[in-house]
């Protein structure tokens, strides 16, 4: 037992939290270099971000964990478990579960930028999880770095001591030893009784085609051995463990046992990642824990969109690809749907806009698919006149006005941190997006934190881009879902040549309907090529047309000269034209190229 306690004392479980681009992944790499298992020459930049996409975007999409065997300068040997967290507002819940698996968190703050919205949001999450927060001021190699100012800001705004906290350059490797010292000194060792009934927190899981689902866990209490029968407490599902081990920088290392305080993985021939939900508790089937670990939530999609193969014949490929992605992403949901305009496709649910973009990009990149994605939608709750309440995630299914007693839309509590210069413009933006001002706090003399209540459906289009462009990229955003509110919503249809194009239908607040209708009608006009017949474009609420444009008829498409009997050339020209035509989507009686369709859906800054 004392041997166990000695071992437990040498464990440090910690996360790194930061606002996007403040250097979280780079710092993680530097820490990894202190591991005995990773030689410097093996270091690929940002080892923790496994996916190409993550590396390119410089963000962490899925949480990863790694165990580092670290020998301190005084010769003491430690086990450091670094649990990486996704750095985006869409993945708040996953972040909170990762944090719950730790005793401490490094809060990385860019010394040239100071505290940003996600710095705060993440810091609060860490405080909520009772974590010891170790501030780290980063990027001190940059000329505009002001570490002392940022330290003061951390103390003033977050209320944690930051004097003398490590000031580093993760990029150059400067002062990283200070960070290592702080981890060992300030992050508490885990506690937990190895003989108590088993309680493991699931903080991530990935699908592996050989092992089935690999579940990443933190053992809170008890001891887990290979061969044990385990039970997942939210569902009661039982499995027999196959492998138990730890997470080396380059993969899984089977150890056969994990006990209280340790971080590692377990496999149990689990087929579906849906069975191992983040936040769930793993216990023994025969000697279960009395209660599950707190904080488990079913992950819920907040944003929905239709995904259609640009080439209708690729339906099955698209389905296979979605299934494969779903294997590794429990937060992503999909089910088949059909659209008159777009044919067979899928209604997909995402945690948020970034999540949606990532899925789209992965589908296109990893599976080589051309896709059409419809405008994102939120879930509206409709109380019908017959008393029934329905959730509407597809605007096409929005009931007609006479069936609606009350329409509710999801609201978010948004926090925006911005230099004071841009406050006016951002308040206008929030106002314009139907935001309700809550309060405004000065973080210091130059920066402000704004709180607004905003409808989610105003955020999912292009709010983030508008925010960035109005603040020259300096403002940062974080938001949290905050229930539903009654709203005056209308369904806006678009008609091409008199026929409704269902894929373009969306739900909008009545006051915004006219402006949005005009804007989209204009965009349609720009993006629909002239065709033989004049094409009226109409935007309508019910039968009332509120905006109108016309695509003029094509007048000229002719090869005037067929010189010297060169028939082959003319034939080739027609062939090429025919090929182009094949790619066109028939929207009603109008042909639209998939690219044009996408251009219409991407609204851009208004």
């Amino acid at each position, binding site marked *: 037992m004392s041997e166990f306690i000695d071992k437990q004392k040498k464990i440090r479980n910690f996360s790194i939290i930061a606002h996007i681009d403040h250097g979280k992944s780079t710092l993680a790499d530097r820490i990894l270099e202190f591991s005995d298992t990773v030689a410097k020459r093996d270091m690929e930049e940002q080892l923790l971000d496994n996916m190409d996409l993550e590396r390119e975007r410089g963000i962490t999409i899925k949480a990863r964990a790694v165990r580092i065997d670290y020998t301190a300068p005084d010769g003491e040997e430690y086990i450091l478990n670094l649990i990486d967290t996704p750095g985006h507002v869409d993945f708040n819940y996953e972040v909170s579960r990762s944090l719950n698996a730790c005793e401490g968190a490094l809060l990385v703050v860019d010394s040239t930028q100071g505290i940003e919205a996600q710095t705060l949001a993440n810091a609060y999450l860490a405080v909520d999880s009772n974590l010891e927060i170790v501030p780290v001021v980063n990027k001190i190699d940059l000329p505009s770095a002001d570490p002392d100012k940022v330290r003061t800001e951390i103390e003033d705004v977050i209320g944690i001591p930051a004097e003398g906290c490590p000031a580093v350059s993760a990029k150059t490797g400067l002062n990283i030893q200070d960070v290592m010292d702080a981890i060992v000194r300030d992050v508490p060792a885990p506690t937990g009784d190895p003989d108590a009934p088993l309680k493991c927190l699931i903080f991530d899981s990935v699908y592996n085609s050989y092992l089935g689902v690999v579940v990443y866990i933190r053992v809170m209490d008890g001891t887990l051995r290979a061969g044990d029968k385990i039970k997942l407490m939210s569902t009661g599902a039982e499995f027999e463990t196959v492998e138990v081990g730890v997470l080396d920088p380059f993969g899984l290392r089977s150890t056969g046992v994990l006990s209280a305080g340790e971080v590692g993985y377990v496999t149990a021939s689990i087929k579906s990642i849906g069975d191992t939900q983040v936040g769930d508790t793993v216990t023994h089937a025969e000697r279960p824990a009395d209660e599950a670990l707190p904080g488990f939530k079913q992950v819920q999609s907040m944003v929905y969109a239709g995904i259609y193969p640009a080439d209708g014949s690729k339906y099955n490929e698209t389905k296979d690809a979605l299934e494969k992605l779903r294997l590794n992403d429990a937060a992503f949901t999909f089910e088949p749907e059909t659209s008159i305009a777009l044919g067979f496709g899928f209604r997909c649910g995402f945690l948020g806009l970034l999540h949606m973009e990532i899925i789209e990009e992965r589908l296109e990149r990893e599976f080589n698919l051309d896709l059409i994605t419809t405008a994102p939608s939120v879930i509206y709750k409709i109380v019908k006149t017959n008393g029934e309440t329905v959730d509407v995630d597809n605007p096409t299914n929005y009931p007609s006005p006479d069936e609606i007693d009350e329409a509710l839309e999801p609201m978010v509590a948004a926090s925006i941190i911005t230099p004071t210069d841009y406050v006016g413009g951002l308040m206008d933006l929030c106002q314009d997006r139907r935001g309700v001002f809550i309060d405004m706090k000065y973080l210091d003399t130059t920066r402000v934190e704004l709180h607004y209540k905003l409808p989610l459906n105003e955020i999912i289009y292009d709010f983030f881009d508008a925010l960035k462009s109005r603040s020259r990229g300096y403002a940062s955003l974080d938001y949290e879902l905050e229930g539903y509110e009654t709203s005056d919503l209308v369904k806006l249809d678009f008609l091409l040549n008199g026929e409704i194009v269902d894929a373009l239908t969306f739900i909008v607040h009545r006051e915004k309907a006219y402006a949005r209708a005009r804007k989209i009608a204009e965009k349609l006009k720009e993006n629909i090529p002239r065709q033989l017949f004049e094409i009226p474009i109409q935007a309508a609420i019910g039968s009332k047309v509120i905006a109108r444009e016309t695509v003029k008829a094509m007048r000229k*498409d002719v*090869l005037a000269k067929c010189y*010297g*009997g060169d028939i082959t050339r*003319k034939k080739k020209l027609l062939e090429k034209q025919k090929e182009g035509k094949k790619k066109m989507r028939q929207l009603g009686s109008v042909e639209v190229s998939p690219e044009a369709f996408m251009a219409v859906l991407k609204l851009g800054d208004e």
Partner: protein
Amino acid sequence: MSFDLIPKKRLGLYVHIPFCLSKCAYCDFNSAVPENDEFMGRYVSAVITHMNNYRDAAKEYEVDTVFIGGGTPTALPKAELIRLIKAIKKTFNLTRYAEFTVEANPATVTLPLLKQLRRIGVNRLSFGMQSANNRELKALSRRHTRQEFIESYRLARRAGFDNINVDVMFGIPYQTFDSLMKTLDFVTRLSPEHISMYNLKIEPGTPFYKNLKAVREVCADEDTEYAMYTEAIEFLERRGYPQYEISNFARHGFPCIHNLKYWNCEEYLGFGVSAHSYFNGNRFSFISDVKKYMEALEDIETDIPLTDEFDPVESRERMGEYIMLRMRLVDGLDPRAFAAKFGVSFEETYGAKLKKYLQGGFMVRYNNGCYALTPGGMFVSNYILSDILEFDDLCSYSGSF
């Protein structure tokens, strides 16, 4: 004396002269300013050798049209042009009334040349006038002026040419609806037998293409071009030049028989660089490089290939071609002739798609049962044809199996 009871197969001849005095800004035809007269003489010799190679193959045919085009055939030294024409007559069986056209650029012809051409059997001249407006001519980098064209045209009449075509272009820089109408008025007052009116297409590789944006800025827009086209058709009809093909208009009895061969899927042989042929069920063309072309013909041992594209026309494709080409003609396509030729019904095969164009006013069905494009339909004929025709109609499968 004996009569052939079975009429001989007919053949058109085309000879390409790739030389010009200067290159026009819009032109993407195979032509260049030649090095010297000797070089051109060599080229003519090569063409003559080339024609000789086909002498046997063409023995069964009688040639009823000859078209010497370019480039500028009249850029050849007079003696070389005469030598070429004489060789054509010697090599092939020309019918007595064969249509024999030579393209001529205004300001490159003299009365003696024209007289001699007429004397040795050339009976049709085609002038590349393009516009009667000097500013427009200059923008096209044509070498002649309106006045010089008038003079050349009069010389041709004096030399005895009673079948003359005049080329006009529309959609060219600085041209307006009114200036086109003035050009047409000018041309019709001269009373040529035939008028071709081509829409400018800016092709890659031309000076116009390099300055696409600037050129487009001074050209009429699509809607104006449409108005020019449809109005010109009516205007020319009123002046006694009914349209018979997308870009061609003629007084009664004077359509270009050679060009009709192209639209009627009839056989023709083309000699010279980049010349196209449709012969024995194959479409083919010759290489475009003048030097290589000459070397290939001067040296029997050579392994330089003369043929550039070779495309056997499959029967299904022939059907697509037929539609594509017939639909260029005002007379259109006769479904009975179609059925006789291909053994399938035109209406049954393409009916569903024809319907929307008939209803939309892009196509008509005449009282005689023929289908044809209206002027508006002709101006969007690529769109319509690429919609009507199937891939199978257009693509050749040769070599892909």
